[in-house]
């Protein structure tokens, strides 16, 4: 029987038994829901925050001062650039309350979010105290502090004899615009944090994804090998297929499962991001629905590199995970057997992520060298490429090194696998593995 048809048959079985399980369906569904929720988070946050008003009670020494405070806060804060208020649901609704004790009680029972207490101190200056369960440096406190400043200024102007009508113009909001630093740039400026995500942040996220794919599906492969060993089905299939065919079939089968799961997640995420505008207009009304697009950093080039390093990294590690699995005969021993792969991939991941986040100098010579190491490059190259410090030859060289190493790893892995799968009992030490590699079984 030809090698390829056996690899396909093994891959098909691996794929079928995994995809048909309820845990796979459930896990994929949860992942999709999670990704959609994250993609729609801005809309959800707006819906939750924008749909309600912050109720503030004002306690003032005189009724006139209370009215002034109410007017200043509503007119100033509800037109703030950071606010998202609409006519129906203003950000701040102010009530003037006579008694401070009653008002504080109101915060405690949830009637108000905060009480702004005002007193006229010696020297006629107004003093403010905010009573709230919200954080002192939070948005509500910060905005109310702005309001308090405005009230105090208005009060001083009163005492200086400036007429209230003139004061209204004084407090009219100024024109305020945000523009690109680059005069050539004419595209609209980022509306939200999400759309301002740079390539480096995306590369950071993709590195995490690659790491997760390798660890999670690599472990699956090791477990699946041990399962075949412990159920002794290995001897049956070994009579029909070569160790290489079994190993390659497992790697491709589980790889296809990984691809399916991640494709579902990526498609769901992209669709959710593209549909943000439509969802927002339904949930929040047309006025609030800003045009939201894919993050600008998500270039085809970066996506292609993510695909290449993801697939190559998986192939490299997956074949070694399979070999490690073949050295033990019980599920309990899998973790110990895959430890070397876990350590190396975690080290590469941590260095890669730290460099991408700027905690390590991404231009340092040792980082450049490490980035070429095939076991590390899948975790490190995306960060360097996205920040624009990787030369094209570096990328080409690291991919070439990866491909060569994968060939070697598959050769080594199928030797270990061929000998390991019929080995039961004691886990062989490094010397025994070396002997198996040299001599075969």
């Amino acid at each position, binding site marked *: *029987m030809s090698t390829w048809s056996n690899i396909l048959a093994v891959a098909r079985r691996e794929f079928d038994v995994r995809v048909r399980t309820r845990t796979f369906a459930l896990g994929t569904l949860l992942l999709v829901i999670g990704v959609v929720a994250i993609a729609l988070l801005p809309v959800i946050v707006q819906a939750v925050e924008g749909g309600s008003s912050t109720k503030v009670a004002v306690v003032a020494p005189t009724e006139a001062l209370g009215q002034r405070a109410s007017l200043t806060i509503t007119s100033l804060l509800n037109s703030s650039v950071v606010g998202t208020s609409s006519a129906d649901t203003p950000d701040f609704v102010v009530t003037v309350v006579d008694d401070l004790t009653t008002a504080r009680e109101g915060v405690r029972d949830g009637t108000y979010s905060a009480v702004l207490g005002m007193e006229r101190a010696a020297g006629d200056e107004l003093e403010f105290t905010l009573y709230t369960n919200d954080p002192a440096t939070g948005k509500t406190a910060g905005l109310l502090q702005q309001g308090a400043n405005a009230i105090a200024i208005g009060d001083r102007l009163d005492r200086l004899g400036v007429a209230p009508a003139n004061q209204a113009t004084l407090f009219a909001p100024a024109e305020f615009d945000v523009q690109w630093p680059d005069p050539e740039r004419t595209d609209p400026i980022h509306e939200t944090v999400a759309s301002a995500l740079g390539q480096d942040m995306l590369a950071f996220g993709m590195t995490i994804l690659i790491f997760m794919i390798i660890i999670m599906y690599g472990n699956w492969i090791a477990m699946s090998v041990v399962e075949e060993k412990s159920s002794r089905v290995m*001897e049956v299939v070994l009579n029909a297929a070569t160790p290489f065919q079994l190993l390659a079939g497992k790697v491709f089968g589980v790889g296809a499962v990984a691809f399916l799961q991640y494709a579902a997640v990526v498609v769901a995420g992209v669709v959710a991001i593209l549909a943000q505008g439509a969802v927002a207009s339904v949930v929040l009304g047309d006025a609030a629905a800003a045009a939201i697009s894919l993050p600008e950093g998500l270039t085809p080039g970066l996506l292609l590199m993510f695909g290449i390093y993801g697939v190559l990294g998986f192939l490299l590690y997956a074949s070694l995970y399979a070999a490690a699995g073949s050295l033990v005969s019980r599920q309990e021993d899998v973790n110990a057997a895959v430890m070397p792969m876990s350590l190396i991939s975690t080290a590469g991941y941590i260095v890669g992520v730290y460099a991408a986040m700027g905690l390590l100098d991404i231009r340092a010579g040792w980082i450049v060298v490490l980035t070429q190491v095939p076991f590390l490059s899948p975790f490190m190259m995306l960060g360097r490429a996205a920040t624009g410090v990787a030369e094209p030859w570096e990328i080409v060289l690291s991919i070439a090194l990866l491909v060569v190493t994968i060939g070697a790893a598959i050769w080594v892995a199928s030797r270990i696998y061929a000998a390991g799968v019929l080995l039961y009992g004691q886990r062989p030490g490094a010397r025994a593995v070396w002997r198996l590699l040299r001599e075969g079984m």
Partner: protein
Amino acid sequence: MTLTITNLRKRFGEIQALDGVSLKIEPGEVFGFLGANGAGKTTTMRIVLSLMKPDAGTVTWNDRPAHDWPRRTWGYMPEERGLYLRMPVVDQLVHFASLYGVSRATARREAQQWLARFRIAEYADRRAETLSKGNQQKVQYIATILHDPDVLLMDEPFVGLDPVNVALLKAAFREMSDRGKTIVFSTHQLEQAEELCDSVAIIDHGRIVTAGTTREVKRSTGHQVVRVATGGDGDLGWLRALPHVTVTRDGADYAELHVDAGTNPQSVLQAAIAHGEVLHFEVADPSLEEVFVERVGALDVEERTLAAAPEARA
């Protein structure tokens, strides 16, 4: 079309597992491979199947090296049964057969037929782990033969089967044999071997002790077995006085004795008639078990118990 095993040697660390094993197995033969645990049966089978490399020696099938033949030439039932426990029975049979190049449709159809024949058709879509050990073993046997191999190697195929299933499996063996398939199986249960095998080999400590047709092996000890029963007072003490005779079982009026090679058993009959009325006189070859005990020594108590009470292994 002969399976020829020549001077196989294999060492695992300190242990010389095979120490020059040579065998000739004729096509269409049912061949019994007899030996204690650790004697080298499984290692020999694994080497024949190219699952393991020998340190020295060769295996040929029809004058070509065994590993040059397509995989579908060989069917293997390992001693430790192996099935995908969480996979439906028929699906895994199709999977195994497809690895040998059988089309999935054909494999499915034939698997269903075999399942029906072994009276487990209703389990076709059940997961293997829900089947009893005996039924799993029948599935295992189907997995061994579904791709229609020319040579079947089976390690302890009867262990764990109840008498009804043993009979079913024996019938299947004979049918495969009638179709020209060569069947090699190892066993502890020497009566099974005696009943089924055209030829047998006894292996001990990696060496073939004796091999040949079942009859040749039974005669290989050189002596014959005589069973004699007499009337009268039943005192058989005179038997011990006969030359070249060893009494192996001594009853009140019944005895079983070994007659050394070169001695005519008829001399025992003549002596018996001289001592009184003869009710029963029989000359036979020793049983395989007797040959085994004589050549290798008794299987230790544990192995006998295991062979006799197969479910204890499961």
